[in-house]
């Protein structure tokens, strides 16, 4: 395997492509080594943690326009009182349970991108989720937006069938469409403690190695031409190799803070754990579901927003203690917001535009864009002002050193991730002009 300069630049973006014939453990060693080499030459790599808030989070009770009488008219029973709101400006404030994120906002580390959506919003959970995950509202789902980025970063023109990589890790048991790729296999790691390939248990270590070896030999062989055979063999090999590696990492990590006792926080703790292993992982994906609050919204959403905010805050404090927080930006989105007017069940039905959060010490915090009007509506829903692909474009260009145009089409990045050095950084790829569009953060409402 030899590197060309172009390959190396791609590797700088994420990782190197690997040939199919190379045993995966060897490929992984080379990848980890090259990533460390890049770190040594160019400085630390930036890391993205995507948080998907599943079910359609009600944006209006998350970032509350408490100064607008129309808000309380539309929400007579579930509106959040002005006195309870955690004020971000003289117009909007966070849900009272989001104290952790309020602290991040005050520290200038939370960008609240307001009124995010896209034309002709879809109100089906599944289609809307697909749209956010693929960033392709007008075509059937195929690859995710990060999947396309990964493929471009990894494989270029000489595409192998599948590469295995720890460049991205999904912290859940099933893989979201966002990370569906054509050429890169993304590991899903629900829990490091159970992430182990068990053999008999009564054997000597050497016999376990023979068992793993027999498994790997079987998985190296193509079988009869079953359509899903290559896929299963790729995942199986990756599962066994990755689990052996992670068992070693898990033994050496200790959290620096006490994480909240929630599944979500445990997933973030696992991200911190894998980060501590320095495998070169640059993208993590975490999900928090249950936001589909057609009824009894105040209790359900209040609990979820506390889980969300406390989890993020603890995660960043852990990383701060370890000196790696500057490397991390967190993107949190939901597939849609909800109707402006509450329904009769103390809930809200499916709507459209909603805020998106980008959090981390490297983020230029503040309110981005104006809050959407509560009176100039589109079929009872908020009108969007910022296309979600502009948020993605910012992340691709300013955080992951990717080409947003190739992945998303022509969307103007926002100025939420200003360039900052984490130590020396790689030279930008040729032709990558960097223009930053600043959005006014005026709170004046029409």
């Amino acid at each position: 395997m030899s590197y060309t300069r172009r390959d190396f630049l791609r590797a700088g973006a994420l990782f190197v492509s690997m040939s199919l014939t190379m045993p995966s453990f060897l490929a992984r060693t080379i990848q980890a080594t090259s990533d460390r080499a890049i770190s040594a030459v160019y400085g630390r790599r930036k890391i993205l943690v995507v948080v998907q808030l599943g079910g359609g989070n009600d944006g209006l009770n998350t970032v509350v326009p408490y100064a607008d009488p129309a808000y309380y008219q539309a929400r007579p029973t579930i509106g959040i009182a002005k006195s309870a709101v955690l004020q971000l400006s003289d117009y909007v404030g966070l849900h009272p349970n989001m104290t952790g994120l309020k602290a991040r906002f005050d520290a200038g580390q939370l960008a609240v991108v307001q009124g995010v959506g896209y034309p002709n919003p879809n109100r089906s959970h599944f289609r809307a989720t697909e749209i956010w995950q693929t960033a392709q509202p007008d075509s059937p789902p195929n690859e995710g937006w990060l999947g396309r980025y990964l493929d471009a970063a990894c494989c270029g023109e000489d595409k192998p069938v599948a590469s295995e990589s720890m460049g991205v890790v999904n912290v859940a048991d099933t893989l979201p469409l966002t990370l569906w790729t054509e050429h890169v296999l993304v590991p899903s790691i629900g829990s490091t403690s159970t992430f182990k390939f068990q053999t008999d248990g009564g054997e000597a270590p050497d016999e376990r190695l023979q068992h793993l070896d027999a498994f790997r030999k079987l998985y190296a062989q193509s079988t009869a031409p079953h359509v899903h055979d290559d896929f299963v063999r790729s995942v199986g090999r990756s599962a066994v190799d990755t689990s052996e590696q992670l068992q070693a990492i898990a033994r050496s990590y200790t959290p620096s803070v006490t994480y909240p006792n929630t599944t979500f926080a445990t997933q973030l703790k696992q991200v911190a754990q894998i980060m501590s292993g320095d495998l070169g992982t640059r993208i993590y994906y975490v999900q928090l579901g249950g936001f589909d609050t057609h009824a009894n919204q105040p209790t359900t959403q209040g609990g979820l927003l506390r889980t969300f905010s406390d989890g993020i805050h603890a995660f960043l404090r852990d990383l701060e203690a370890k000196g790696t927080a500057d490397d991390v930006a967190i993107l949190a989105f939901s597939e849609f917001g909800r109707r402006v007017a509450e329904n009769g069940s103390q809930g809200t039905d499916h709507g459209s535009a909603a805020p998106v959060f980008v959090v981390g010490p490297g983020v230029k915090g503040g309110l981005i864009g104006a809050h959407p009007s509560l009176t100039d509506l589109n079929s009872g829903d908020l009108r969007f002002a910022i296309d979600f692909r502009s948020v993605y474009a910012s992340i691709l260009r300013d955080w992951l050193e990717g080409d947003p145009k190739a992945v998303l089409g022509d969307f103007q990045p926002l100025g939420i991730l200003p360039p900052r050095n984490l130590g020396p950084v790689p030279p930008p790829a040729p032709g990558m002009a960097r223009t930053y569009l600043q959005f006014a953060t005026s709170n004046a409402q029409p």
Partner: protein
Amino acid sequence: MTDRQLIAHLLRRAGFGATPAELDFYAGLGFDAAVERLVTFEAVDNSALEAALAAKSYDLTQESQAATWWLYRMLFTARPLEEKMTLFWHDHFACNNAKVANTPYMVVQNNLFRANALGNFADLVLKVAQDPAMLVFLDGRDNVKSHPNENFARELMELFTLGIGNYTEKDVTEGARCFTGWTISNDRFFNNVRQHDAGTKTFLGQTGNFAGEDVCRIVCQQAACPIFIARKLIKYFVTDSPSDDYVARMADVFRSSGLDVRTLVAAILRSPEFKDPANVRGLVKSPVELLVGAMKHLNVQVLPSDFWSTLRQMQQELFEPPGVDGWHWGEAWISTTTFLFRANFAQRLTSGTDQNKQPFIDPVGIVNQAGLTTNAAIVDYFVDRLLDGDMTADGRQVIVDWLDGAAKTSSDRLRRLRGAIHLILTSATYQLN
């Protein structure tokens, strides 16, 4: 493909795999008679299962026991297609107990699916619309005249009958108005006429003072409905990428039958596509298919009380589909994490013990009973039993080499035998259906 391989394929798809004895029995019938027996399951005596379940007396108010009860049915029923279709409807009209929070409702719904497993689709749609678990899950009970809740009306069209693109947002809001007043009283469906919007509605092009029954009738009359259901059943039974022509043919059969599901499923199982060798092992086994299938293949007779949670780890917990669109099938079943849980389930079957501390399987007993004297013969035997012979010579040699590595002690030998079965159960081909 041999006749026996075809029957094994049929029993994996129309059921959950077969014990060696079941495979012998259905192979004796021949393919056509086997299909006939599967699709006319009411004629098959299932009293042994019901008697065994009565003796077990599972507490069906507890979700874990209800899940175990259902797994027991899948394992020991004489009517495999009945349970396979019950699972289909559970996935299709997906409700989860995480939201319903009422296990008896989930069991009532499960029995509704079983009683209508191969019945008329339009009848089933109406019954589901009035089913308590569904009325909770999609908020139908909160759907009242003054505040229509659109949840059920939307999913009825998007996921249950038509698919996206075959209705408008207006049909959703109008459909929701038609269902207003449908709620639950004393744990049963109740039509609260005082909460019903008796005004005129326009739904899918028809106008009238419609109620929920009309919506169920009208959606099932749409041209998109038989196509939508035929495609989904083909994906369940045959291939995840059916041709439009195949779907259209099956949809025609379904439409002409007046949406009789038995007619449709029989046509699918008898279609040339079903027997096409390219479609054998062309689906990814769902966790339920993997777990029940492995137990049947190995003739495991004890169902531990915690296997329902093994299914949760593998991401197909019964009564808990992740959302109203059900489970995501195909390659979505297999991630690095779920792969390890699948492999570790196989490890438990081969090396673990049941709640009575008895090993699930007795590999030495099997080998002796079958009179296998060489490692090559042992590997061939288990490849036949577990994979219908579907493993290359190179693959078999890897397992023979593994067996050859055993020291001479009987405990070493037993461990290697367990490992050999484990290697077959974790093989890529065994993950496929």
